[in-house]
């Protein structure tokens, strides 16, 4: 208790030095929480973008479809009515839509390009992927009334050199192997900021694709949106149980888009590296200060030893001092960071992709209690570890030598 008292009072002894140490710790903790908060906000926004423009929450495919996705097989298809019937009494599902993913050739009078086609039921698709409307560079996205229209990725459109309202010929091989063609009008041009975006992507109405590919009532992919409050894994488990008699594969968005996991992993690695650098900075500042403190108080250490303080008492005195500096800096840093992250969450940070003049999306940094606790642990750990060497040095002093120092 007496050591605790001395340690606490010693913190205020050299105010300027303590302030520098505490500020370093505050900055370390602040940057960690803020960086993690921004990264988490970025990841969340990317995931929402992914779900609301590409994957939906859950997808159903025929067994083996995903393994052969590169060739976009039409024969591994699903009767959409079977899914609708199977899901008729299901809870936790808000919307179900069918898609046909197909490959084709888009041809104008001058140019020709490969199409990665996504045929969609526009009304249902927009209920599941509402952000498809948000990424338009030119024209508009498809509407439920549209027929014989196409919306293209900006890179694909650049290759074709089309303008809104221009027609383009789509050639595609039907499920039966016949090559069919249809004329489509360009309605809009979109961009995608997501990783692994297909630059040859184009959307057409499902009815048009079903006619072109001779797949009436048949789709290659079923996409679902779950009710917000339902647990996705539990919903998938119930669906798997329901469709146990069918050769369907049912997956969550996470299982489908593994690139997100890779992105999260690399960003976490980056923020981890930042934390390590900050740890080194905080560690060296605290150690430097504590070495100065030990040097300055050499005579005092000698006095304490003379009146009977043992090595462990001296050691704990300086470690406690480091501990308190760490905890003070940690708490201040966490409070400041929480306020800043909370404000940024309310305001939002516009995120610009390279070369883009318009904000691709708004990042809303998140406060994560786990990160705050980790940052506090970081600050205390760095401060105590950095105090270990100076404290050990102080505790090993020879009392006569220590008393002799001025």
């Amino acid at each position, binding site marked *: 208790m007496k050591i605790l008292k001395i340690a606490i009072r010693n913190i205020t002894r050299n105010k300027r030095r303590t302030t520098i140490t505490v500020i370093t710790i505050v900055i370390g903790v602040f940057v960690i929480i803020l960086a993690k908060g921004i990264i988490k906000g970025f990841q969340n926004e990317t995931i929402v973008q992914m779900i609301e423009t590409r994957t939906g929450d859950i997808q159903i495919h025929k067994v083996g479809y995903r393994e052969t996705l590169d060739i976009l097989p039409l024969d591994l298809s699903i009767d959409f009515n079977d899914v609708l019937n199977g899901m008729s009494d299901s809870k936790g599902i808000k919307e179900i839509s069918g898609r046909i993913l197909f490959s084709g050739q888009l041809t104008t009078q001058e140019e020709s390009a490969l199409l990665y086609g996504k045929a969609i039921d526009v009304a249902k698709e927009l209920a599941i992927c509402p952000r498809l409307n948000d990424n338009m560079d030119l024209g508009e996205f498809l509407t439920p009334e549209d027929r014989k229209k196409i919306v293209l990725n900006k890179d694909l459109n650049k290759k074709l050199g089309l303008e809104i309202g221009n027609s383009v010929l789509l050639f595609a091989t039907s499920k039966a192997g016949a090559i069919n063609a249809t004329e489509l009008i360009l309605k809009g041009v979109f961009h995608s900021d997501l990783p692994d975006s297909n630059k040859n992507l184009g959307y057409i109405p499902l009815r048009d694709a079903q006619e072109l590919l001779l797949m009436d009532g048949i789709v290659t992919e079923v996409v679902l949106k779950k009710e917000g409050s339902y647990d996705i894994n539990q919903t998938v488990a119930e669906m798997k149980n329901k469709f146990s008699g069918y050769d369907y594969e049912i997956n969550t968005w996470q299982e489908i888009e593994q690139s997100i996991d890779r992105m999260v992993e690399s960003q976490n690695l980056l923020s981890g590296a930042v934390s390590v650098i900050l740890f080194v900075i905080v560690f060296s500042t605290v150690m430097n200060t504590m070495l100065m403190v030990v040097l300055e108080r050499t*005579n005092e250490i000698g006095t304490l030893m*003379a009146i*009977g303080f043992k090595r462990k008492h001296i050691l704990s005195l300086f470690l406690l001092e480091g501990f308190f500096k760490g905890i003070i800096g940690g708490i201040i840093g966490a409070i400041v960071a929480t306020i800043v992250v909370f404000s940024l969450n309310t305001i939002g940070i516009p995120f610009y992709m390279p070369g883009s003049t318009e904000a691709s999306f708004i990042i809303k940094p998140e406060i994560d209690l786990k990160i705050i606790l980790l940052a506090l642990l970081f600050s205390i750990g760095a401060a105590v570890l950095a105090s270990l060497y100076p404290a050990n040095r102080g505790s090993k002093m020879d009392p006569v030598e220590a*008393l002799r120092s001025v």
Partner: protein
Amino acid sequence: MISVQNVTKDYKLGKTIVKALRGVSLDIDHGGFSCISGPSGCGKSTLLNLIGCLDKPTTGKVIIDDEDVGKLNKNQLAEIRNKKIGFIFQSFNLIPVLNVYENIEMVFMSWKDFPKEEMYKRITSLIEEVGLKDYLKHKPGELSGGQMQRVSIARALVTKPQVVLADEPTANLDSKTSYKILEIMVDLNKRHNTTFIFSTHDPIVSGYANRNIELFDGAIKSEDFKNRD
């Protein structure tokens, strides 16, 4: 009680070996008020450091209560310093962040089962004895040199040690304050029957002692006893 037997102490100063003590022997009996005098560098502080278990002799023995302190480890020496020896320093050596009461209380650091009431009684009574009753909550920075030395005396006596060692206790004080401090020490020596050993190179100060051990070049030059009364 304390026996110094043919003690030598060598220090290494670069490549040179300095012989600080060259075979000193003396016995200190309980209740004495002894002075170690001599010019600077004669070995006064070294001898006090050895008696105070702050250092170990190069050869010879320092026996305290039949125990050869040269054979004890650091923790055992700290234990002896805490329980059996009190220190008064030339520069007072108070902890600046603690007030008068806390500076004295600090000595009880390792006294785990010592009753708090008894500790409080001892501290306050000693503070009163050294005349600092009204300065209990004052920090060292708010005290004069003489007041700080009085705190230092109370701190040295609070554990009821067998011996109080004072290394030039008046060197940083003016003569008037010095005599006051010495009078307090003499008074406490009489009332508590605590052994005092102090060092000085001031003949007036050494005049307060009832035993004067004069050192020269690391050896006892002369020793005389007198009746202080």
